[in-house]
């Protein structure tokens, strides 16, 4: 997959709340399909379908040899998906730090004019 396609698959996979909940569970450690299905009011085939989407997006991997085929979270696509957010955050951080300075300046001006009046 090209980088843009991979990112596309990552965001599509993350758009679903059940899949995000599965990833949250897997962040705590690997788990089998049965273990993952338990907290959700969902059949194992339904969960398996979500797992296939996550696997295609590269967000999880599944062991091939063990019979219970535990799922494991893969962090790399998440890091890539968050990179844009980091850029966006830096821009807003810089904006708001300038706003802090401006607000300080306005407060000092108001305080000074109050002091002159009293």
């Amino acid at each position, binding site marked *: 997959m090209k980088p*843009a396609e991979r*990112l*596309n698959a990552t*965001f*599509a996979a993350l*758009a679903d709340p059940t899949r995000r909940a599965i990833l949250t569970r897997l962040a705590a450690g690997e788990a089998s399909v049965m273990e993952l299905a338990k907290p959700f009011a969902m059949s194992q085939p339904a969960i398996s379908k979500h797992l296939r989407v996550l696997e295609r997006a590269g967000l999880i991997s599944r062991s091939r040899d063990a019979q219970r085929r535990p799922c494991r979270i893969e962090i790399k696509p998440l890091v890539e*998906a968050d990179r*844009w*957010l980091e*850029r*966006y*955050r*830096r*821009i*807003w*951080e*810089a*904006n*708001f*730090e*300038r*706003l*802090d*300075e*401006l*607000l*300080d300046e*306005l*407060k000092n001006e108001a305080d000074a004019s109050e002091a002159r009046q009293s």
Partner: protein
Amino acid sequence: MPYPLTITRKGDRDIEIFRVFDALRGRVFDCWTKPEFVRRWLTGPPGWSFQVCEIDLRVGGKFRYVWRNAKGAQMGMGGTYLEIVAPERIVNTELFDEDWTGGEAVGTLVLTEANGQTTSTYTVRYSSQEARENVLKTGMEQGMVASYDRLETMLDEVNAS
């Protein structure tokens, strides 16, 4: 130390930008709505400044922002005010000139004051989940970030020369 900034995806279509300020609400409101103040802080990455900053703060009124960098690269956006409750709430449409956000978005600014501090929550709702995801995966990369990447490259070149 500045207060921490939180940026989160909310629901299917929203991005929320949350921050606390050490100032009274009326003053924060002025900084978001008066061109002479907006010009001083809403300038984005280093090297960019406002070329146009026009605000007609009334329901149905329009705002128009154009930023420019030292090399003449330009980025513009604008919109219409849908709702204004000074000093606590503004709702407006917004659209970048190079429509990399997949159609018009709606921005909602909510300011609340407690103990002399103001929390500012700015939520941008995109036209659809697809549009938001598009912003995340393509728009943000090809639009905004590409402009800033170009800028960073330029700054590197300037510093190197």
